[in-house]
Every structure is written in C-alpha cells, then in structure tokens.
C-alpha cells in the first residue's frame, strides 16, 4: 500500500459519510499506521453536504486537512461538483451512480461508478450504501480481506449495535464483488 493516502468522503448528512471515514481510520490504526479523521463542522452540515477527511500514513501526519485527495468518494452531485477538480492527478473517484447521473469530466483520474444506493436497497440494507462503496475502495486497493474488515468493524461498531456487524460485512462484500 502506497502511503500516505488522503481520502475525502462526501455526500448528504445521514448517508453515513462520517462513519465510513471512521471505519477507514480504524482499519489504518489497527494496521499500525498513523491516521487522522476530520469532519467538516461548518453550519452547512444541517441538511446539506457532509464530508470528512481521512489520512492514513506511515509517518506523523502533518495536517488532517486535505487539499488534494488521492481518493474521493462522492455520494451526491454537489459533492462531485465541489471536489472533482481538487482530486490529485492519477487519483481515484468513487461515484454513487444511483444518485449522480453525470459522468466525471476529468480524464486524468480513475473513476469507479457504483450504484451503491440501488444495491443497498435491492439487498434490504438501505442505509449502507456508504459501506458498499468502502468495500469497493478496499477491493480496488487490494486491501479487501474478510479478516481485516471484520477486525476494523468490530472497533467501529459500538457494542450496543453489535447486531449491525454482519450486515455491514455483507454490504462491504457486495461492494467488493461489484463489477460495472
């Protein structure tokens, strides 16, 4: 895994944007990397866009703020419109193609279109489009293994919600095995 990687997760409030970022940070942490997670905390969070920045590195992280992400996850059109232009050249964009009809305009980045919201509702897990996208990211980065995913998930899903662990596992597996 080439480090550091800077991931920007973005979408509407309520799509689990912060949670998916937290999962990625925990996964990095249990693999002994330096990690940081920073939410957007502006007034725009109410009913508008939500985003969080995750940095995973093998050295101390300079800043949790990301100006040029390696990975962008866009779960709504305003997020893609806002952040497409700042993705690093050669970086990767993951698009929830159920909610975003347009294509990515840039030709110097890798793009994966995943109908995550539709896959989630088809599989009776309507709130887990975020984790379907996370599954896809890990697969693309060759980091998907049931073992590592479960270890990180156990950390991030609180004991109170332990019953949600398996369905999150399933969501990531759906994302990991999805081919366009």
């Amino acid at each position, binding site marked *: 895994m080439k480090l550091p990687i800077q991931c920007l997760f973005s979408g509407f409030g309520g799509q689990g944007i912060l949670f998916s970022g937290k999962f990625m940070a925990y996964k990095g942490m249990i693999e002994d990397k330096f990690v940081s997670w920073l939410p957007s905390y502006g*007034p725009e969070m109410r009913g508008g866009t939500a985003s969080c920045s995750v940095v995973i590195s093998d050295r101390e992280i*300079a800043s949790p703020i990301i100006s040029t992400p390696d990975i962008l996850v866009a779960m709504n059109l305003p997020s893609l419109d806002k952040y497409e232009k700042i993705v690093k050249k050669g970086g990767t964009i993951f698009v929830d193609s159920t909610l975003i009809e347009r294509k990515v305009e840039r030709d110097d980045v890798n793009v994966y279109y995943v109908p995550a919201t539709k896959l989630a509702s088809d599989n009776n897990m309507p709130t887990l489009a975020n984790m379907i996208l996370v599954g896809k990211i890990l697969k693309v980065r060759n980091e998907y293994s049931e073992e590592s995913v479960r270890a990180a998930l156990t950390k991030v899903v609180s004991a109170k919600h332990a019953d949600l662990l398996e369905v999150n596992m399933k969501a990531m597996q759906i994302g990991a095995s999805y081919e366009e």
Partner: protein
Amino acid sequence: MADKVLMKGNEALAEAAILAGCRHYFGYPITPQTEVAAYMAKKMPKIGGTFLQAESEIAAINMVYGVSSAGHRVMTSSSSPGISLKGEGISYLAGADLPALVVNVQRGGPGLGGIQPSQSDYFQATKGAAHGDFHMIVLAPASVQEMAELTIKGFELADKYRMTSMILADGTMGQMMEPVDLDFKITPEPEKPWATTGTKLKRNHNIVNSLSLVPEELEQLNIARYERYKTVEENECMYEEYLVDDADIVLVAFGITSRVSKHAIDNAREQGVKVGLIRPITLWPFPKAPFQKAVGHAKAFITVELNMGQMIEDVKLATNCKVPVHLCNRVGGMIPDHTQVYDKIMEINEEVK
C-alpha cells in the same frame, strides 16, 4: 499498554480531565469545542460528578471559582469569543490564587469571527487574558494524544502553583480523531489546606478573596505572586526540538502548524537546506533556552502561525532580535499547506545564503 482508541481531541481532553480527578465541569456550548461539554454531560452524572450547562460563559467561570475555592479540581471550556467573556472570572481566579483548568479551542476572530481553526488568541492567553497583573500557564497540544496528556499536566501544574492552566488548542485539535492511549499514571491530588471546607471549629477561617483595599498589602500580594511565576518560568518550560542542532533556519510553531512545519522541513532537508523546528509546548512560560542556543548558529527564524503574527514577538524577545524573524501565516480559519511553508523556507534560504 492499553489498546489505543480513536477519539476526537475534545473527547480525549474531557476523558483525561475525568481521569485527572476532575468531577466538576461548567460550560456553555460553542463550536468547535461543544464535544467537551457533550462528553461531560454524558459521563459526569454516571460517576457522581457535576455537569452544569450554565446560563452563560460568565456564570460558568464563576462556578469554577466556587468549586476551586472548596478545593476540588474543576474546569470549563469554550472557544475564542466565549473565553473573552470568561476574562473577568479568570482575573478573579488569579487574584484569589485559585487553581483551575480553562480550555480554549480557538476559532477565527475577532468578534464572532468564524468557526474554523485559528491561533489568534495567543496574545490573550499568554499576555492579557483580563485586567490586572497575572499569568496563566498556557499549554499548546499538537495531537489528540497531547490534548489528553496536557490536560492532566494542566491540572497538576494548576494545583502546584495555585494558578489557572489554559489548554490553548484550535479547531483541528478539537475536531479531529487520532489514536490515543489513555493509560495514564495520575499523581494524587495534593492537599489544599487553604480551601474553604469548613473549620469544624478546629482551625481559623480560610479566606478566598481577590479584593484587597490596602495598597501596601495588594502590592505585596502582587510581588509574591510574581515570585511564584518566576519559579514556574524556571521549572516548567516545555518544548520540542526537531533537527535544530545544525539549522541555518529555525521554524517556530505550536499546535497544528508545528506538524505542517515538520513536513515542510523534511522536504527542505531533502533539498539540502538546513532547517529545523522549535515547538513551544508551554506558551507561558515561553521556553527561552532553545532560542538562546539556536541563535548561535541560526541565520533566520520563521514563525508559522494561524494569526497575523503574535508569537513572533516572543521569538524576537527570546533571541534579542539578533537575527531576522519572519512570519509564515494563514488566518480566518485557513491552515497553511506544507508547500506554503516549504516555499517560505526556500525564499528565506535564498536571503541568508
């Protein structure tokens, strides 16, 4: 070692305060520190502590005064505009020689300003929190781990010197999550024989007060307090040095900008530029020793700050203005990218070559 957990800086700070024995928290919500209050609201009732959302910041700081007078560890937290409101109470704490912990998770100003990270309350924290001659011990964390560690340190120093300790953080420190290890060794709270806990008819009254109407006596109180400050300056300075020993250019930064600076330093070192960093951890007392050493070989200093140039004055004092001190900054909630700091290093390197 216990397992590391991923926590927001604000939450790690709150948990560390509880570990340090603080059972009384008074606050009022303001972004970006609200998670401190939220965490206390959740935890304090479960451990027999007090969480109270006061009617204002002014009320909160005066409740701190009350609990401290009774000899217990106590804290309040806020962000920049709220700290200004607390100013009067902070001065009263100083006048009554009461220990307390005050947390400022800074946001951009002046006025209501914005809600994004800033370091623009450096002057306020280190020089002029309110009226009267007094200081606070000011601690500047640069990671979530330090948000926790320095909170515990802050309580210890406050008790030791009967002063207010301030954690001077910023929005990134409060909001970001990083792995943190909360397995701390806590030194027991010292006895507080001066506290107003009731005489039980066995001793004279203890009096906690900041009013002193006899000039001769008030003068002596001020002089004695500054003797104590001198001891703090001699014994409690904390700082980190990074690649300073052979440096031609020395960056000076605290909190988040120290981390951005290290990144820029590594990149500049790869280009053969001899550059290092002094990171003050206590902003008051300001650590002069590393500057007196560095000024022997450094050709220039650069402070990296999220304000219009505040710590730069202390750097000029600590170096007796022997070499130029430059400023690399962003304000209003913006944070410099490591490339901006790198460019500044290269620009100054051309000048001093």
